[in-house]
């Protein structure tokens, strides 16, 4: 039901989404979210770190929570780790469901939890200098929407 991956190399969201749609032809709707490294804000490189024993198991638990909460035909979560340049995909979440609201809500839910609960640490390089990114208050308020 859920396809959850921690990607150590670049992935192509279009190919992944096409494969997901092909695998769930009975679903009436597929919603997706793609997060990519922002260009044009002086960031030269983004580095996402993870902790092997926790990160992927935590993503699996999140997928299970989404599958339990909404009526889904399928769920796809791909999250990069490692160094990325502007424009490169960071995260792709897609949900297939009989009805669109389940798919849209499941993607929104998964993204809020990936941002604030998953075991990733992010740093970015600007003008040759790396700095760690602290969590934003919005990440926690976004999470509170789901009770």
């Amino acid at each position, binding site marked *: 039901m859920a396809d959850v991956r921690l990607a150590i190399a670049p992935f192509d969201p279009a190919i992944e989404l096409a494969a997901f749609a092909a695998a769930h032809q009975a679903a009436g709707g597929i919603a997706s979210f793609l997060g990519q490294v922002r260009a044009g804000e002086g960031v030269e490189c983004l580095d996402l770190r993870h902790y092997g024993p926790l990160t992927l198991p935590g993503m699996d638990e999140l997928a299970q929570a989404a599958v339990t909460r909404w009526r889904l035909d399928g769920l796809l979560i791909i999250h990069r780790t490692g160094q990325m340049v502007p424009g490169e995909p960071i995260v792709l979440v897609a949900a297939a469901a009989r009805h669109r609201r389940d798919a849209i809500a499941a993607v929104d839910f998964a993204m809020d939890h990936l941002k604030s609960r998953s075991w990733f640490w992010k740093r970015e390089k600007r003008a040759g200098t790396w700095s760690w990114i602290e969590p934003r208050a919005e*990440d926690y308020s976004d999470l509170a929407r789901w009770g």
Partner: protein
Amino acid sequence: MTARLVFLGRLEDLAGAAELAVAAGPLPDVLAALAPNLTDALLDDRIKLALNGALIADRAGIVLDEGDELAFLPPVSGG
């Protein structure tokens, strides 16, 4: 008798390495042997700990054995 400390996020910069081999023993003794600024950072209660890959709710009473891996996990910033 060595155990391994793993530092995530900005703690890696403070420690100067992603991992550190330390003498096994009670956690307070292990921390006391580190550089003072690193010890202070690790005592921050927003930092979660995982022992051999499992999160621990209460850091009191942790004793590191030979081969144990203790990870220090600062607040996450993913996605």
